C-alpha cells in the first residue's frame, strides 16, 4: 500500500470520525471540534490530490496546496467566530447550549 493510499484512508477516517462526533455530541464546542476534525481530513485529501497531480519537475501540483492554505485560513476564521459566539452566549445565559428557551418547533433535537 502506497503512502498516498494510506493518507487517503486516514483522511476518510478523519471525516467519518468528525461526522460521527457532530451527530452524537450536543455540546456546541464538541461540534466545533468535530468540524475541525473533518477539516483536517479534507485538507489531507487535498494533499493527496496535490501529490497525485505531480507533473514534470514539480513533486506536487501547487494549485491544491494553494487551496488548502485558503481553506485552513477560512476554517480558522470560522472557528474563531464560533468560539466568540459561544463565549458571548455563555456570558449572556451562563450556559452554552443550542436549545433556545422553548418557543419554536423541532428545536430540541439537534
Amino acid at each position, binding site marked *: 500500500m502506497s503512502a498516498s493510499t494510506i493518507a487517503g484512508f486516514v483522511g476518510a477516517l478523519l471525516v467519518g470520525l468528525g461526522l460521527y462526533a457532530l451527530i452524537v455530541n450536543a455540546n456546541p464546542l464538541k461540534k466545533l471540534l468535530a*468540524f475541525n476534525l473533518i477539516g483536517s481530513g*479534507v485538507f489531507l485529501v487535498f494533499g493527496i490530490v496535490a501529490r497525485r497531480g505531480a507533473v514534470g519537475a514539480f513533486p506536487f501540483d501547487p494549485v*491544491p496546496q494553494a487551496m488548502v492554505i*485558503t481553506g485552513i485560513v477560512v476554517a480558522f*476564521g470560522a472557528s474563531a467566530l464560533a468560539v466568540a459566539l459561544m463565549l458571548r452566549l455563555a456570558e*449572556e445565559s451562563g450556559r452554552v*447550549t443550542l436549545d433556545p*428557551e422553548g418557543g419554536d*418547533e423541532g428545536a430540541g433535537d439537534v
Partner: protein
Amino acid sequence: MTTAAATTEGGALLVLAILLPAAGFLASFALGARAGERIALGSAPIALVIAVAVLAMVWRAGRPIVYAIAGLSPPLGIALRADGVSAVMLVATALIIPAAGLYARAGFATPPSAGESRKAFTFWIMLQAISAALAIIFVSGDLFNLYVALELLTFAAVPLACVEGRTETFAAALRYLLFALFGSIFYLLGAALLYGAFGTLDIALLAERMRPLPAVAAAAALMTAGLLAKTALFPLHLWLPPAHANAPAPASAVLSGLVVKGSFFLTVRLWFDVLPALPAIGFDAILGALGSAAVVFGSVLALRQPRLKLLIAYSTIAQIGYLFLGFPLGSGPHAWTADGWNGGLMQVLAHAFAKAAMFLAAGVLYESLGHDRIAKFSGAARAMPMTILTLGLGGLSLMGLPPSGGFAAKWLLLRASVSSGQWLWALVLLLGGLLAAGYVYRILAPALSGESIALIAPPRRTGEAIALTLAIVAVALGFAPDSFFQLLDIGRPALTTAGPP
C-alpha cells in the same frame, strides 16, 4: 468551446459588481458606523446601475459575458462569468439590499448627536459584505472561488442574525453557523474530489471534461448535501426559523430573501452547468422529493405558529421546497424543461421580493404593536392598512394566486409537471398552494376583523412604503414578458445540448 474563457466585451463590469460592495464594507470597517451607513446607502444606486448594465450587456450579446482575471484564462486563471440568471439575480440583489438598508435607518442610523454603536457598525458592514458575497456567487465561474464566496456569505449572515445581542439570537446564530460550517466543509471535500479527477475547478472546463467516474458521484453527493444544509432544505432546515425569526426585520428580509438563494444558486450551477453530462442517477428525483417534503412540512408548521415572524420563517422553508422542484422538472433535453427552469427561477425572484416585503411589514407591525402574536392582530388593518396590504400582496405571491410572480412560477412548474407526466409534483404544487392560503388567511383574518387596536407607536410611513414597494415588485413579476424568460435562458446549458426543439 475554450474560447468562451477569454474576456468579452463588458467583462470588466463583473469586476466592478464585486469590487464596489467589497470596497464599501472595507471602507466602512475603517471609517465607522456613521460613514458605513452613508457608504452602504450611497453606493446602492451605483450597484444598481452596474447590475442593470451587466443585464443589458448579456441581453445584447445574447450569450454569457466573461472576464478572465489578470488576463489568465482557465485552467491557469480564474474566470468571472455572467449568464442571464446571474444578471437577473444581481439586479434583484441590488434592489432588495438597499430596500432593507433604507428600512433599517430607523433602527441602525447614527444620529449626529449620538455616539456610534457596535450594533450599527456591524449591521452596515455586514449588509455590504452580503451583497459582495452574493455578487461573487452570481458571477464566479470557479468552484473553489465559489467556496470562498459561500463562506464570506455565511460570515456576513451570522452576525446579522444576532446583531440585536439578545441571548436567544446568539443560540440561533451559533446553530446557523455550525450548520453552515459543516455544509461548506462537505462542499470543499467534493471540490477536492472533482479537482483530483479532472485537474480543474473551472465550471466550463469541468463540464467539458465531465465523465461518470465514481469520484464524481461522491463529489456531487457531498457538495449537494453541503449546499442543502446552507439552503435549509428539509430535513436540514432546523437552523432557519430561530435565526430568521429573531433577527431584526431588515436583516430577516435579507437573510430569507437573498442569503438562502446564494447556496441554492450554487446548487443550480453544480447540477445544470457542471454535471449535466452525467447520466440521470436519480439525484434530481431525490431533490424533488426533499423539496416536496419541505413544501408540506414547512407549510403545516407555518400554520401552527403563534408569532408572525416565525410563521413567515416557516413559510420560507416551504417556499424553498418549490425551488427544488425545478431540478426534476428543469433538467434534461426535453421540450418541457424550459418551463421547469423558468418556473424555478421565477420562484427564486418572486419569493425573494415577497418574503423581504413580508418580513419588513412584520417589522412595522412589531414596532407599532410591541408584539407579533397573530391572535392579537384584531383591528390591525384599520390602524395600518398599508402594512396589512403588503402582507396580503406578499401572501398572494406565496399562495401562487394570479396576478403575481408566485403564480407565474407555480404555473410554469405545474405546466412542466403535467406535460412531462410527472404528476406527483403537480399534486405537491396544488397542496402547497392550499396550505399557503391557509397560513396567509391566518394572518389576514384576525387583522381584518375587529374595530380598533392599541398601538404603542404610530406606524412608520417610510418603512410601510418600502415594504409595499417590494410586495408590488413581487406582484409585478407576474406580468413578466416573454423576453424576460428569453433573458433567463441565455447561457442555459440544457438549451445548448438539446438544440432547437
